[in-house]
């Protein structure tokens, strides 16, 4: 049977109270052990899944950074004591679905606390300096060795773009927020629903130059859901369901390929470009065919660079593109008509489903006051810092 899946490599660490090894050391030993056992390398892997019940954030990506960053899809999963088995299933489904022919599943847990942390830990008050973690820090380095705060990181992503390309400054970034706040006035699901003038935005509290408060996503609660069916199943459903169905023409997940700058500053550009290019190829659709885009504007600086990363504007032309209001809802390619994360809000787990909700609702012609008339094709983009990027291209049912 061609559906068979095989294990060709496996390894495990001794189970101990590993007081002198951090969780990455354990993850790497098992991962490299399994690759060695199979006689393959990370370059052969087309998907990876990492199961840990307690490691937060994007732990799997931290493992990739130690053993090989090739840009492949990566799942961080948990399911109580079946966490490792769920990682195995994630890889197995990717292979069975024909998305990958080889993948790595890792399960790992650091249950004992008294071993070296690998992430930055807060400084203890009134202490004697002692090096901690993989960088041997003796005090909290935030504000001493630059910033790792989100609004600062994305601010630097923006000024990097401004350095490389002309016509981009504080005002261009602020215009992104002006647009998104204007858009959300039509969206009752949005957290904010009032317009902000450009002046108001530029004179608001500066979080980290050039991102002011209204250029940054707020903290809010929310949820979004979608029901997916196969093409075969769809044919068996009611005509009304078929008529409102929205096709997922492309679904791509990428992680960071190695880049020398990525260890000092997260690179949100390359993995977005990779995801977008593959999505356009999968769907047989180009940026010029899009009727609307929901992209990951956690900060105004992020939205601007993604105009270029998603090929929405001319190369290097993101500043000029926002200046001529191209991404406004009445412009040439509406971006974030929901209000985007800046104004609609960004309840983290919900975000990557909420953007499908938004685009699907427009493609169905059911977006009410904020409807983009005649929308037939849309793109969604989301980035989880660490990083992982997912791009979908959606099309409305041919009617």
């Amino acid at each position, binding site marked *: 049977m061609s559906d068979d899946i095989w294990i060709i490599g496996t390894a495990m660490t001794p189970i101990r109270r590993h007081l002198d090894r951090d969780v990455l050391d354990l993850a790497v030993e098992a991962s490299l052990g399994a690759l060695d056992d199979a006689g393959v390398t990370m370059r052969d892997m087309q998907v990876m899944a990492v199961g840990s019940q307690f490691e937060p954030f994007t732990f799997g990506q931290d493992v990739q950074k130690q053993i090989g960053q090739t840009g492949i899809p990566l799942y961080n999963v948990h399911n109580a004591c079946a966490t490792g088995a769920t990682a195995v299933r994630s890889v197995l489904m990717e292979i069975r679905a024909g998305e990958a022919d080889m993948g790595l599943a890792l399960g790992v847990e650091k249950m004992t606390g008294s071993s070296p942390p690998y992430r930055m830990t807060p400084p203890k008050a009134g202490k004697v300096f002692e090096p901690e973690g993989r960088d041997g820090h003796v005090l909290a380095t*935030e504000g001493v060795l630059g910033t790792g705060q989100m609004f600062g990181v994305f601010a630097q992503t923006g000024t990097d773009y401004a350095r490389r390309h002309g016509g981009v400054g504080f005002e261009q970034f602020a215009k992104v927020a002006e647009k998104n706040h204007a858009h959300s006035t039509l969206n009752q699901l949005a957290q904010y629903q009032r317009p902000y003038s450009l002046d108001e935005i530029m004179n608001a509290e500066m979080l980290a130059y050039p991102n002011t408060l209204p250029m940054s996503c707020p903290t809010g609660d929310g949820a979004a859901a979608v029901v997916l069916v196969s093409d075969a199943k769809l044919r068996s459903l009611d005509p009304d369901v078929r008529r409102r169905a929205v096709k997922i023409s492309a679904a791509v997940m990428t992680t960071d390929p190695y880049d*020398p*700058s990525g260890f000092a500053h997260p690179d949100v550009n390359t993995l977005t470009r990779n995801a977008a290019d593959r999505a356009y190829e999968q769907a047989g659709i180009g940026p010029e065919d899009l009727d609307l885009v929901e992209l990951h504007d956690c900060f105004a600086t992020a939205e601007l660079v993604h105009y270029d990363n998603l090929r929405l504007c001319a190369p290097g032309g993101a500043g000029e593109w926002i200046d001529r209001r191209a991404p406004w809802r009445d412009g040439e390619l509406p971006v974030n008509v929901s209000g985007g994360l800046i104004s609609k809000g960004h309840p983290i787990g919900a975000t990557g489903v909420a953007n499908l909700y938004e685009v699907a609702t427009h493609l169905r012609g059911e977006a009410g006051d904020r409807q983009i008339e005649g929308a037939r094709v849309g793109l969604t983009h989301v980035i989880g810092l660490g990083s992982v990027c997912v791009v979908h291209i959606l099309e409305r049912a041919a009617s």
Partner: protein
Amino acid sequence: MTRQMPVVDYLVIDDGPPHLAGHRCDECGAVYLERRNACAACGARTFSPTRLPATGRIESFTIVHRGAPKHVGPFVSVLVRLADGTFVKANLVGVPPEADAVDFGVPVRLVTYAAGTDDDGTEAIAFGFTYDEPTAPAEG
């Protein structure tokens, strides 16, 4: 004499002029600052110590206001591309925390300063970058 320790172990302060030290992949030459298991670029598993250059260029910056440590105040965070292509994040020091004061065109040079003192009186030595104006004010 006051005892000193670097704020992070990739800053070397006891072997000639203060400098940054990295781990260079024996296979592909990728350079990393922190302790490593294997190479993210090529998968190789052995590294050699390497001394990094003191000068570089600013790639990006921000001026952090919210959440800045109280004793530091608003500060300029920069991503620096060192002369050998290694990237490092740090503060831009000796420059006011104003957008207009940050100039991509001027090269920067590593400097060190005391960033704190512990209960034993040991000083933590931090590094930052500052404009390297004496040597090349008009370069680039």
